[in-house]
């Protein structure tokens, strides 16, 4: 069933969609029926800019374990970036 599990977050970024790069202002993360993956439920991530219409979307669907792996991998990379001195002090202080 449609789980209605969906969170949104404002972000700053760029995404490469079908028509090329566009500014990403929001990420929608849900755990619900996927469109493409052969699973009943999947973790879906949509990087969007709603001001550019619903087609401005980079979509990814992941299994639960892959979603957890992605979270771990992102955290590992951020930790390495911080340890390597690549993270701007102002950014670190703001927790960004």
């Amino acid at each position: 069933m449609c789980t209605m599990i969906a969170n949104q977050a404002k972000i700053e970024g760029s995404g490469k969609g079908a028509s090329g790069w566009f500014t990403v202002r929001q990420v929608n993360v849900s755990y619900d029926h996927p469109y493409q993956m052969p699973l009943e439920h999947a973790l879906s991530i949509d990087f969007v800019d709603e001001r550019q219409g619903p087609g401005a979307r980079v979509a990814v669907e992941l299994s639960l374990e892959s979603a957890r792996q992605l979270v771990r991998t992102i955290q590992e990379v951020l930790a390495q970036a911080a340890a390597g001195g690549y993270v701007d002090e102002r950014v670190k202080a703001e927790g960004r």
Partner: protein
Amino acid sequence: MYQTNMYEGMLAETVTLRGAQGDSINAYFARPLGSGPFPGMVVIHHLPGWGEWYRECTRKFAHHGYAAISPNLYFREGHGTPEDIGAQVRGAGGVADEQVLGDVEGAMNLLGSLPFVNGKVGVFGTCSGGRHAFLAACRLKGFSAAVECWGGRVVLSKEELTPKQPVAPIDYTKDLSCPLIGLFGNEDKSPSPEQVNQHEAELKKHGKHYEFHRYDGAGHGFFYYHRPVYRQEQAVDGWKKVLAFLEKHLKA
């Protein structure tokens, strides 16, 4: 029953109708050609969107002798591919039950106003659409039959209520105003077999006219031939039961 020397014809196209708050929304309408009169069917799409399966479903009802209409419940969210719009609505937590009821009522009223409709209109939905079909059959007056296919979130705890879904549909069971058929897969997690038991118990408690069919070897969405959840034998049997139920309550 169709014989191979009979004439068959169908009209299927996009139309507009007045939905919730008098908003003009689009809908897909399919009907047999001729003066009928034909019974009507409102087809409610599920959360993933107003996609091709619902066009085919609407035409399937027309093939079986119904004037069928599937409103675009996401019309107000903008336009794009059904998947992009569906994903956008999913991200925003769906659309409000009250708005869906307004759109479904608008579709019912449109069918009822047509000169080739016989005065009886049914409502059909799968997944969240099944939930909405049950909700519509309870909250709206005018449907003569309701088809709920694996409607999850009919049974909801207080913690699961949201501003867009403020009341559990099961709480409206006493107001169900037409016969109901429900199809459920016994491997489904939402609704789970226990939730279907609760749904059924409430119908019995209020003396409602219903029939539930529960399928082994099937989970959620077993009519969807384009998804791995499709179960051929159960889907064929399910459609047979749905069409027999509608024949009895809308064509007799």
